């Protein structure tokens, strides 16, 4: 086995409780996004586009769809003879089994996996963020600063700052303090949950953290604060592009609406930065002579007889005559009957909405789960 400079560990085990019905039997990174993708596509494509070819994916919550989806990583060009994608579920050892107790614990339990590649650096990323980031540039900054850990950070609005891990740095981007969800944030520089560690140091920390009964075994809550305490050299890496954590129904909807904005900050058609996903065999979309489709993203396999405005349609969506879909996100294989009105809603995979229904209102985002039938 050739050694790898940097191995990525992708955290994909989260339950995603705040996505409600969308994640009742589905891992959050497998949630559909943007008419064609699943959330994890963005992070995996970042790896590919950054030249990172060894990715461990840590799963434990309802992983069936996610595991089948990822396979050996072919769609993301991550099917490699050495390295590539490896799914890492919790497992039983000689002395019994443990579920992953936290983000840090999941890496701790897979030290053997990482050691196979004898890497200098480990990149820790999450499978539920929407962004395009060249991790190679971050790694270069990490190396140049001679850092022991580097945390990617983005400026957020001051009013939102207390929802994030907030980083305070000196002029050279060196971290002075880090507070998880502070009531009175000292800065508006938020951690994006993307870390590069020197593997030698991280390994030691993980082993000692695993023994620490009081630890919650979390990178943000435990590992980073311990490193600051120990006087390790931590740096922030400022990121200035589009980045969203789609952890709630509202943010999932808003991020979709961002895609539809004129001159959207997030371009799915960017040449040189493809977002890869598993392709399905669906025919071209059929837009009938009575349909109106405006300011929308529509995937293959859709048949549209009604009106679609400012919305995103995943594959296999069927919309009959007289219906109107506005400001909404429609997931795969949803069937919408005649004279249905849908407004500001997210409709889960395979749901059927019969004729004359009205879904959604102007106040909130309405969520209908997977495989429901609205009669």
């Amino acid at each position: 086995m050739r050694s790898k400079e940097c191995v990525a560990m992708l955290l994909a085990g989260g339950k995603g409780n705040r996505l409600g019905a969308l994640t009742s039997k589905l891992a959050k990174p497998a949630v559909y996004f943007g008419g064609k993708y699943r959330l994890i596509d963005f992070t995996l494509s970042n790896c590919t586009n950054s030249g990172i070819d060894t990715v461990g994916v840590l799963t434990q919550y309802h992983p069936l769809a996610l595991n089948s989806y990822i396979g050996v990583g072919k769609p993301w060009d991550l099917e490699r003879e050495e390295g590539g994608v490896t799914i890492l579920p919790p497992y039983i050892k000689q002395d019994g089994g443990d579920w992953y107790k936290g983000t840090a614990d999941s890496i701790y339990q897979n030290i053997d996996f990482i050691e196979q590649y004898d890497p200098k650096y480990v990149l820790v990323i999450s499978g539920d963020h929407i962004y395009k980031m060249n991790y190679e540039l971050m790694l270069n900054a990490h190396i140049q600063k001679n850092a022991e850990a580097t945390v990617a950070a983005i400026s957020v609005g001051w009013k939102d700052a207390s929802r994030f891990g907030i980083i305070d740095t000196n002029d050279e981007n060196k971290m002075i303090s880090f507070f998880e969800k502070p009531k009175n944030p000292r800065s508006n520089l938020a951690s994006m949950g993307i870390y590069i560690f020197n593997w030698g140091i991280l390994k030691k920390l993980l082993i000692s953290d695993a023994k620490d009964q009081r630890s919650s075994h979390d990178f943000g809550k435990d590992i980073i604060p311990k490193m600051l305490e120990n006087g390790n050299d931590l740096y922030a890496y400022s990121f200035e592009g589009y980045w969203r954590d789609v952890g709630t129904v509202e943010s999932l909807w808003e991020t979709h609406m961002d895609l539809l904005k004129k001159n959207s900050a997030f371009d799915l058609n960017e040449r040189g930065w493809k977002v890869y996903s598993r392709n399905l065999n669906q025919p071209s979309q059929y837009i009938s002579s009575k349909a109106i489709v405006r300011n929308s993203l529509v995937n293959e396999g859709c048949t549209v007889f009604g009106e679609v405005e400012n919305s995103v349609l995943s594959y296999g969506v069927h919309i009959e005559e007289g219906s109107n879909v506005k400001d909404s996100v429609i997931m795969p294989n949803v069937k919408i009957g005649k004279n249905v009105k849908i407004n500001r809603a997210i409709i889960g995979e395979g749901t059927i909405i019969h004729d004359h229904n009205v879904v959604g209102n102007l106040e909130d985002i309405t969520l209908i789960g997977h495989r429901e039938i609205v009669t």
Partner: protein
Amino acid sequence: MKNVMGIINLVNETDQLEELTYNRCIASTPFGGRYRLIDFILSSLVNSGVQKVCMFTQEKYRSLMDHLGSGREWDLDRKQNGLTVLPPLFDDPDESKKGDLYYFYCHRDYFFRCNEEYVILSKSHMVCNIDFKPILQFHKEKEAQITVLYKEDKEELYSLTRQIKVNADQKVSSMQGYHTKQQSDPFSMEMLLMRKELFLDLVETSIAKGWKDFITDAVIKNLDLLSVYGYKYSGYLGIINTVQSYYKNSMDLLNASLFNQLFHQSHSIYTKTKDEAPAAYKSSASVLNSLVTNGCIIKGTVENSILFRGIEVGEGARLKNCIIMPNSVIQQNVNLENAILDKHVIVNMDQEIIGDPKMPFVAEKQKVI
């Protein structure tokens, strides 16, 4: 269907597709928004449970090879069975004049190594989504030596077909040469089911007689000696071997019911996939009665047209009755009617091209207008 193998014969396919096949064979001609013609027969075979397919190629097959790759998209990338391409074994181009029989004959070793009992012989220019299982059933029930698929169609086809006569007991009494179809006579779909043994036998004895073509010679000249039955197919069928038939059959797909017959059956048509974003309809877009594929960015007006993947339609542009192949660009205020643009064509701003509705304007690959 484990004991049936598919043979796709691309040798001497009747080809009047003109500009569309200057640099490719019929089998790799783009069709229906995201497919190539080969996808239809290949998917039909796979969906029917056929696990082994061989393909006889003749010329201009480079883009076909690119398209097929390892056969993975059709689930034919296998260690056991799967897709095998059998190119001409001879170097002398004169030998190719000997016809498809000679191609089969040169590769008879390949067939000896196959364990399948039956073969389905077909060409690539039939657009359809067929389940072959009932045809094998029919073949066995009739105790036929050869079963030929045929179709009756009242409409004008604009394509070249082979007329066929089928008796009341479904026996084939005659088959003709290729002609432009005018009447509502039944015609052959050029798909034949028979035992592999009979196939090899016919190849060998026909070669010995100096014959060239499997259907024209080995089948038709032996029609009296063989029990050849006709199986009437009633699903969607497009026959593509002239520019006019290409255009008509493409436009037919804009009829939702024909479109559904071909694509929204229980079995999908497989093709090579590309990483393209969902089609983006901008606020100035107006799209009516059209097929649109991923990677398109539409700002103009599109009517009765088929857009393959990655097409840009600029603001103020108008497309009507057009077929636009992958990665072409239609700039602002272009007006295009009754046209077929091959891949990577660029139509510069403000251009206007109106083709004849019967004989559309065709732009070759990579042309700049």
